[in-house]
C-alpha cells in the first residue's frame, strides 16, 4: 500500500467511523428503529480487505456489516437512510441495518443468521470458477460464527473444491455478551480450525489496515492461482456494545482501554505521519469525512419514507408478491 492508498484508506475508515457514530446517535434519538450492530473499531478489516480485492470480487457480510457496505462503495447517506427507514435507503428501507447490500458493487448482502453466508460465498466462488472469471469471494464473519455448523460445511466444501474464497474472521473476543474463549475449544476460533480443512489459517492485526491489506492480497493471489481457500483471523475489538444500546459492561475496563488505545484510525494515522504525510493532510481527510457524514445525516433525515406499496414488491423476480390466483 503506497502512501496515497494509505491516505485513501484512512479517509475511508474515518468515513465509516463517523457514520457509525452517527448511527449510534440517531438510534439514541429514536430515529433508527429495530437494532444496529456497529462496526466502529472494525474499520481496518473492511477497508484493508477491500484495498486488496478487485472490484468484481464478491463480498458477503454479517448483520455487523456497515463497514463492508461502505468499503465497497455504499455512501453514508444510503446507509443512514436505510437505518432511518427512508425510501432512499440502500435496500429501500426493506432490509434495515442488518441487511445492507450493494449488489452493483458486488457486495452481495449482510446476513443476520450467524454463519449462513459462508456457504453462499463458497457458491459464489464456485460460480466464478464455473464462469472462468478469476473472481474471488470473501465472507466476513465474527468469532462466534466459528462454532456453528455452516462454518464447518462451508470450509470443507471450499477446500475439497479448491475454490477461490477467503474466510475472514473478525475476532472481537465476544459473541454477544459471552467471551468467545468461554465457548470455544481452541484459542484461535478461526485460524486454529483451518488445519481441519487442510487450508492455511493466518492471524493478523485486524486494526492495522496495512497488515490486513497485505494478508488478504497474499491469500487472494493464492486463491486466484487455484491453490484454494484460506482462513484469515483478524484480531479486533468493537468500540460500542454488541447492538442497540448495549453498554457492554461485561467487558473489563482494562481490556476496553487497551483496545481503544489500539485504534485502527490512530494506527493508520501514525503510519501516515511516519511516512511523512503532513498532519494537516490527515486532518483534512478527517474533516472531509466529517462533512460528508454531516450532509448524509441531513439528507437522510429529509428523505421521504418508503411508499407503503413497497411492502408488496420484489418478493418475486417479476417485481410482485402474488402467491395465488
Amino acid at each position, binding site marked *: 500500500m503506497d502512501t496515497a492508498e494509505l491516505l485513501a484508506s484512512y479517509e475511508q475508515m474515518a468515513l465509516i467511523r463517523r457514520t457509525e457514530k452517527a448511527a449510534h446517535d440517531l438510534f439514541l434519538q429514536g430515529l433508527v428503529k429495530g437494532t444496529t450492530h456497529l462496526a466502529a473499531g472494525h474499520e481496518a478489516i473492511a477497508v484493508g480487505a477491500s484495498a486488496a480485492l478487485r472490484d468484481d470480487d464478491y463480498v458477503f457480510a454479517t448483520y455487523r456489516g456497515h463497514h463492508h457496505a461502505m468499503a465497497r462503495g455504499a455512501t453514508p447517506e444510503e446507509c443512514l437512510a436505510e437505518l432511518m*427507514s427512508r425510501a432512499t435507503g440502500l435496500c429501500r428501507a426493506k432490509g434495515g441495518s442488518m441487511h445492507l447490500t450493494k449488489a452493483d458493487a458486488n457486495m452481495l448482502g449482510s446476513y443476520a443468521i450467524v454463519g449462513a453466508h459462508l456457504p453462499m460465498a463458497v457458491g459464489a466462488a464456485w460460480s466464478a470458477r464455473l464462469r472462468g472469471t478469476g473472481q474471488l469471494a470473501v465472507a466476513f464473519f465474527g468469532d462466534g460464527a466459528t462454532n456453528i455448523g455452516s462454518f464447518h460445511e462451508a470450509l470443507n466444501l471450499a477446500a475439497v473444491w479448491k475454490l477461490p474464497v477467503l474466510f475472514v474472521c473478525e475476532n472481537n473476543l465476544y459473541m*454477544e*455478551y459471552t467471551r468467545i474463549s468461554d465457548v470455544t475449544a481452541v484459542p484461535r476460533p478461526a485460524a486454529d480450525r483451518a488445519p481441519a480443512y487442510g487450508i492455511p489459517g493466518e492471524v493478523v492485526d485486524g486494526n492495522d489496515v496495512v497488515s490486513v491489506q497485505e494478508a488478504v492480497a497474499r491469500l487472494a493471489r493464492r486463491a486466484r492461482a487455484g491453490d484454494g481457500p484460506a482462513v484469515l483471523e483478524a484480531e479486533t475489538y468493537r468500540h460500542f456494545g454488541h447492538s442497540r444500546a448495549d453498554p457492554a459492561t461485561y467487558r473489563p475496563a482494562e481490556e476496553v482501554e487497551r483496545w481503544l488505545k489500539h485504534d485502527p484510525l490512530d494506527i493508520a494515522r501514525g503510519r501516515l505521519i511516519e511516512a511523512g504525510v503532513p498532519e494537516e493532510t490527515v486532518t483534512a481527510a478527517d474533516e472531509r469525512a466529517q462533512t460528508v457524514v454531516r450532509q448524509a445525516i441531513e439528507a437522510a433525515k429529509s428523505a421521504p419514507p418508503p411508499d407503503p406499496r413497497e411492502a408488496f414488491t420484489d418478493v418475486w423476480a417479476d417485481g410482485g408478491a402474488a402467491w395465488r390466483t
Partner: protein
Amino acid sequence: MADVITYREAVAEGIAREMRRDPSVVCLGEDIGEAGGVFKTTAGLLKEFGRGRVWDTPISEQAIVGAAMGAAMTGMRPVAEIMFSDFLACCWDYLANEIPKVRYMTGGQVTVPLVVRTANGGGLGFGAQHSQATENWALTVPGLKIAAPSTPADVVGMMAAAIRSDDPVVFFEHKGLLATKGPPPPPDHVVELGRAAVVREGADVTLVALASMVPVALTASERLAQEGIGVEVVDLRSLVPLDMATVLASLGRTSRLVTVEENPYQGGWGATLVSVVADEGFALLDAPVRRVAAECVPLPFADVLEEQVIPTVDKVVAAVRSLAAY
C-alpha cells in the same frame, strides 16, 4: 410479590418456579447466564441456581437442542433457549425429525421431556430474519406441543405445564409482549396446555387469536362494541393440543368466525382451524370465515411497511364488520 408483573419477568419467574421444585430442570442457551438472556428473560437464574444449572452455550443451535434432547432422554428436564424463533431453522432437524418422532419410532421406549423456548414475532423493526411468527413451522410436525401465551400469568402457568410435561414443548414468547404487564400469577399456577381461554364474551362474531394478536383482537372488539357488534375473543394459547372444542362452542353461540394471525396467510394455523370448522362446524356457520393474517411477504424493516404486512386493529375491525353485515 408486586401488583403487576411484566411478560418478560414472567418468563424468568416461570422457569425459576420449576427449577425450585425440581432439581432435574436445567437451562442452556446463548448468553442466558451472566447476561440474563438477550431479552432478559432468564435474568436472575444464574444467580439463584448457579452455573451447574444455567449453561451458556456457543452459537450452535443444533448442539443446543440436540444436547437438550439427549439430556431429556436421560433423566433431565432441559429448558433450551433459541434466541429468536427464526433461528429454529438452524436446528430444524431436531424439531422436525428427531424430538417429535423418537418416542414413536422407538415404540415408546424413550420420552423427551424438554422445552425449547424462543422469542417470537415481529412489529419491532428487526427485519426479515428476526421477526417471524414461526409457530406454524412446528404445526406441520406431529409430536410437538406448541405454547404461545399472551399474558404474564399464562406465561408462568404454561411454563409450569410445559416443563412438567413429559412431552416436548416449543414455547413461543412474543417479543412484542415482553414489556406488557398483567396481574401476577398465584403460587403454583399451572395452565394446562391445550386449553383455550374465552377472554371476552360476545354474541355476534368469534375472534380467535394467539399471542400478540390477542391484544389486537381485544382492542378491535372494544371498537366494534361501540358499533353494537358483540365480539367473543378466544385466546387459543396452544396450537397443539388445539382446543377446537372451545372454538366450536363459541361458534355455536356466534355463527361467525374470524381468525387473527400474525403469521403469513399461507400455511398459518388459522387455516387448520378453519378447515376443522368448515367440516365439523359447517352447519353452525351463517357467514364466510375470514382469516386476518399477515401478507405473504417477508417482514420488511420500515415501520410503515411492516404495518402493511402484520394485521392491525383496523384490519380486524374491517373483517369483523364485513361478516357481521353478511
